[in-house]
């Protein structure tokens, strides 16, 4: 197992799109912070952050899209592409059980995804604090907020990564994975709400799912019960989807 993880990690660190996404996020964090800095709020500027924590909060809002779209792209090029290049054959015929192969792949993908999800908020917080000073928030202490934000970013991105990874395992082609993944995240909230209007329990499920949690993960005021749920539910989701990935991959014929 550790061999598989090492190998997957090696491949991830040599994956172009991984570095491309990281570089793009790095760049946009820097540009975003400086734009906010140069944009004067009293002069009708739209960007009104005045502290590092403000920066973090607004970065967390943008980060939901990064998580959803960025991970789809990464999954397409890190997971699905293995089918089209034929390298999945190399792995499957290498004497490891399929479950191990796909668990290793999904775990490393989840790890990489967490990194991707952390880059933007962490950079915004760091650069913002340098530019404006740390600042404070009304409902919560600074340390608690930072830890909670980053912690939930980790758990939620892990959960989303597992969902995307399952899509990537099922489809044999990077393009399909990216397209279907993005469409899925674009419509899924609406679908849940629509069905929820007729079946209340679906709405309940939605409320407790990570799909909804990600909309609130940067709230300054959060009951500790919600915070714990936001940490536990994505992890549980990740475990379920990895298991589903194993199930799908075990009966998949590699073309």
């Amino acid at each position: 197992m550790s061999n598989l993880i090492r190998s997957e990690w090696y491949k991830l660190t040599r994956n172009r799109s991984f570095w491309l996404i990281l570089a793009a996020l790095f760049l946009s964090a820097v540009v975003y912070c400086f734009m906010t800095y140069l944009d004067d709020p009293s002069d009708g500027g739209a960007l009104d952050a005045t502290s590092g924590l403000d920066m973090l909060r607004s970065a967390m809002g943008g980060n939901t899209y990064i998580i959803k779209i960025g991970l789809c792209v990464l999954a397409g090029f890190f997971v699905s592409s293995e089918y089209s290049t034929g390298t999945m054959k190399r792995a499957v015929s290498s004497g490891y059980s399929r479950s191990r192969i796909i668990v290793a792949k999904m775990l490393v993908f989840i790890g990489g995804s967490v990194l991707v999800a952390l880059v933007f908020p962490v950079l915004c917080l760091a650069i913002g604090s340098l530019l404006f000073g740390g600042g404070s928030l009304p409902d919560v202490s600074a340390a608690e907020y930072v830890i909670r934000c980053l912690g939930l970013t980790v758990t939620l991105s892990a959960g989303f990564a597992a969902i995307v990874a399952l899509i990537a395992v099922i489809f044999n082609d990077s393009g399909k994975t990216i397209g279907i993944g993005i469409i899925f995240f674009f419509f899924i909230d609406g679908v849940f709400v629509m069905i929820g209007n007729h079946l209340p329990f679906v709405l309940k499920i939605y409320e407790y799912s990570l799909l909804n949690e990600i909309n609130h993960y940067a709230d300054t005021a959060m009951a500790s019960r919600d915070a714990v749920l936001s940490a536990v539910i994505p992890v549980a989701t990740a475990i379920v989807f990895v298991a589903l990935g194993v199930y799908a991959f075990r009966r998949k014929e590699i073309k």
Partner: protein
Amino acid sequence: MLIGIAAAAVLTAAFCLLRLAAVRREVRSFAAQLGRYNRHETASKLSVGLSDRATEALAVEINRHTELIAEANAERRRTEDELRQAVANMSHDLRTPLTSISGYIQLLESRELSAEERRAALEVVKKRTNRLQALLADFFELSVIESVDYALKPERVALHKLIPEILMGFYDSLNEKGLNPTFELTEEAVDIYADESAVRRVVENLMQNAIRHAEGELIVTLSRTERHAAFTLSNAAPGLKGTNPELLFNRFYMADRSRSGSGSGLGLSIARGLMLKMGGSLAAKLQGDNLVMRCEWERI
């Protein structure tokens, strides 16, 4: 503060224990894999399952060891094959002259022959017998040279004096063959530390071989570089084009398989054997249509 230290200590201890357990498992896995290899259940080498430099280095060395054993086995198989082939070739080489001898003997026994015919038949028998003798002598010499205990008597040899002297002896046979060789022999002193009779034998064998096969041009050179003395023979050998000239030193290789000529075909093998024993080298190269034989000794 104290709690922090305690927690750190517990974590460190836990990490070390886990690491130890992982290393132990890795070592057990090596043992299991080697066991399977030693019981001939598999021929595959060790694989590692832990990212650890020390155990990985151990696995590398174990695999190298396995490889050495495999190589030794392959080498043994190869020498066995060679020996088998050698015996087969030798009996083949002996068979042809023997068949002809016994044929002539039958002829002598069965027919009323004139004295003239009788003499001719006996002549053939004698020639074939001589050839057999030469062949056996060469086989024997080769086996002696190649044996580990065979020792030469090295002394100071002045090549610039010895080689012209040996070449003089070929004057007649060169003329007979109509060869007009070019000699490029250095006049400077070329001293080496070698066995004189072995050097003589090498040069003679190379010359004989060249005279037997050369067509047209033959260039004989003796030269010296800073550290080496080189004796080379170069002659046109269009027949060898596209073959590996190194095969010429194979003791059972003859450009004409029938070995109908007067030589045993072992002259070059013997020459190389002697050169190696003297610590020198003998190599054959094809340069265009030319076959170049080059002997090198270290100068003193």
